[in-house]
C-alpha cells in the first residue's frame, strides 16, 4: 500500500471547498451531508484504503460504498483529488455534458456502486464481503450511511445478514449529523439508542468524533482486529466548516443562494482571495 505523507486537514479543507464550489456552480446538490463526511473520506482515501487510481479494478482493492448517495459532491471531490479523474471535471457536476451525475454513479472512475436511493448500500456491501469470503481475499468493504437512512428497513435486514455471515471485513460508518431533509432526525423519526440497537444486532459498535482524524483512524484500525462486522457511529456536524450551513436543515439540499454567501463559505474554508 502506498503511504501518503500528507496533511489531512489541508485535504479535508480542499474537499470542502470543492463541495461548496460544485453545488454553487450547479445551483443544486446536497452540501450539508457532504461537508459532514469530508473528514471521514479524507482518512479513508488518503490513509486507510488500499486503492490505486491507476488500477481501479484490482480484485484485491478495498471497496467503499457511499450509501447516502446524495453526498456525491464529497465523494467526487475526494476521488478527483486522489487522482481517479481530473479535478477540472468537478465543474460539470449535475450538468448534461458531464459524467458527474447528481447522485453517485458507477460510470465514474473510482465509484464501486451507484447509489442515491437510501437504504441499499449496506446490503450491497454485504454481497461484496460475501464475495471476498468465497474468493479468499481479505479486502475491506466500507459503507457510509446517513442517520436519516437508518429509517429504511433494508438497513436492518442487512445488519442481520452481516451478523449471520460474520463479515469481519465489513465496516459501516454512520454519519450521525442529526439532520434529514425535513428537519432533525429526533423529530422526524427518533433513533432511540442507535448504539444499543446496532449492538443488539450482533455488531461491534464504536462511537467517535467524526471530525477527528485520529479518532476516525483509530476506529478503523481497531475494526481490523474485530471478530464481528463493525459499525462506527461518527458524530458529525451537518454543514461542517461553513457557519451558516452548520446544523441547518435548510442546507441538506440547497446551495448557497447568493454570491455573497458563496464567498463567505469559501473564505471560511480557507480560499485565498
Amino acid at each position, binding site marked *: 500500500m502506498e503511504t501518503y505523507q500528507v496533511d489531512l486537514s489541508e485535504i479535508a479543507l480542499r474537499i470542502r471547498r470543492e463541495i461548496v464550489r460544485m453545488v454553487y456552480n450547479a445551483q443544486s446538490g446536497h452540501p450539508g451531508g457532504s461537508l459532514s463526511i469530508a473528514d471521514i473520506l479524507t482518512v479513508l482515501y488518503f490513509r486507510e484504503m488500499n486503492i490505486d487510481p491507476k488500477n481501479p479494478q484490482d480484485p484485491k482493492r478495498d471497496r467503499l460504498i457511499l450509501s447516502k448517495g446524495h453526498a456525491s459532491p464529497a465523494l467526487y471531490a475526494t476521488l478527483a483529488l486522489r487522482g481517479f479523474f481530473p479535478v477540472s471535471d468537478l465543474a460539470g457536476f449535475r450538468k448534461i455534458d458531464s459524467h458527474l451525475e447528481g447522485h453517485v454513479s458507477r460510470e465514474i472512475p473510482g465509484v464501486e*456502486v451507484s447509489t442515491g436511493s437510501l437504504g441499499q448500500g449496506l*446490503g450491497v456491501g454485504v454481497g461484496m464481503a*460475501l464475495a471476498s469470503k*468465497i474468493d479468499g481475499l481479505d479486502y475491506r468493504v466500507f459503507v457510509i450511511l446517513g442517520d436519516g437512512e437508518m429509517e429504511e428497513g*433494508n438497513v436492518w*435486514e442487512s445488519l442481520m*445478514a452481516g451478523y449471520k455471515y460474520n463479515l469481519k471485513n465489513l465496516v459501516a460508518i454512520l454519519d450521525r449529523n442529526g439532520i434529514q431533509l425535513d428537519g432533525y432526525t429526533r423529530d422526524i423519526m427518533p433513533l432511540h439508542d442507535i448504539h444499543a440497537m446496532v449492538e443488539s444486532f450482533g455488531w461491534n459498535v464504536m462511537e467517535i468524533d467524526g471530525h477527528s482524524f485520529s479518532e476516525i483512524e483509530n476506529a478503523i484500525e481497531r475494526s481490523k482486529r474485530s471478530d464481528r462486522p463493525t459499525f462506527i457511529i461518527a458524530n458529525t456536524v451537518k454543514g461542517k466548516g461553513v457557519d451558516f450551513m452548520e446544523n441547518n436543515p435548510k442546507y441538506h439540499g440547497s446551495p448557497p443562494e447568493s454570491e455573497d454567501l458563496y464567498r463567505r463559505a469559501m473564505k471560511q474554508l480557507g480560499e485565498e482571495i
Partner: protein
Amino acid sequence: MKTESLRDVYGKELVKLGSVDRNIVVLDADLSSSTKTGYFANAFPDRFFNMGISEQSMVTAAAGLALSGKKPFVSTFAIFLTRTYEQIRQSVCYNNAPVRFVVTHGGITVGEDGATHQIVEDVGIMAGLPNMNVIVPADSVETRSVIDYLAGVDKPHYVRLSREKFPVINDEDYEFRMGRSKTMRDGNDITIVADGVMVSKSLEAAEALKKQGIDARVINMSSIKPIDRDAIIKAARETGHIITAEEHSIYNGLGSRVAEVTSEYYPVPVRRIGMRDTFGKSGKAWELFSYFHMDVKDIINEAMTCLEEKNYENIP
C-alpha cells in the same frame, strides 16, 4: 401428455452448473424447499445464502456479489420479489449487475393459496426496467435451456417459473435463444402468440381449430424482452389477426408488447387473453383458467370471432 415441474428442473440444473462453475452462487429468502434451490444448498453450502425473509437484503447482497464477479441466482416466489422493485431498479439494473432472478409460483397456477400469492403483474414490472431481460419458459425442457443460458449472461435477467407442473411440449434437444421465438405449429389463418403454460393451451386450441378447418399458427414467445419483433411482424403480415395468451395481466405483459410491435410496424387487430385487471382467487390451479376465461375453449372462441371478422372484412 407428460407433465414436468419447471422449478424442480431449475433446482437440478443449478446443481449441475454449480459443479462446473465455482462463481455460481445462490440466494433465497426462506423458500428454498419450494423454489428448489435447496438442492444447490445441499450440494454447495458455501455458495448458498439463505437470507431469511428479507428480500431487500437478498437483492442488494446479490448486486454486491454480481459486482464482485460472482454469478448470483436469486430465488423466491414471484410475488415477494416485487416488493424489492426499487432495489432491483437501483442496485441491480442501474448498476447493470448481472443478477439472475429465477422466481417460482408466478401467476394463477399458485392455486389454493389465492389472490395474495398469485402475481399477474410481474412481467410488466420487470420488463419496464432498463437493462433487464425477461423470460417466461413454456415447459421444463425450455427451463433447463434457459438456466444454462443464464450462466453466461452479463446483464440482469428475470425468469418466471410456476408452482404447477406444465405439459412438456418441446423436444429434448430444443435450445432456447434470447430474443427469438419458436413457431410450435405453422398456420396461415390466424396466429396465437403465447408464453408460459399458455403455449400448451394454445397448441390444444390449435388442434381443435384444425378439426374445423382452421390453420392456426402458434408461437412460443418465451423471450418477452427482448421480444422477437420479426416473428410478430411476419405473423401480422401472413395471418392478419393475432391472439395473445398469457398467465398474466393483459396490461404490460406479452399482449401489450405484441400490440406495441404490431401498432408500430404492421397494425392488425390483437386480441389479448389473460387476467383482465383483476386479482386472482383461491381454487384448483387448472380450474382458475376457466374461471378467468383463459382456458383452451376461450382461445378457440376468440379465434372463431377473429375469423368471422376477417371474413366480414373480405366481403368486397
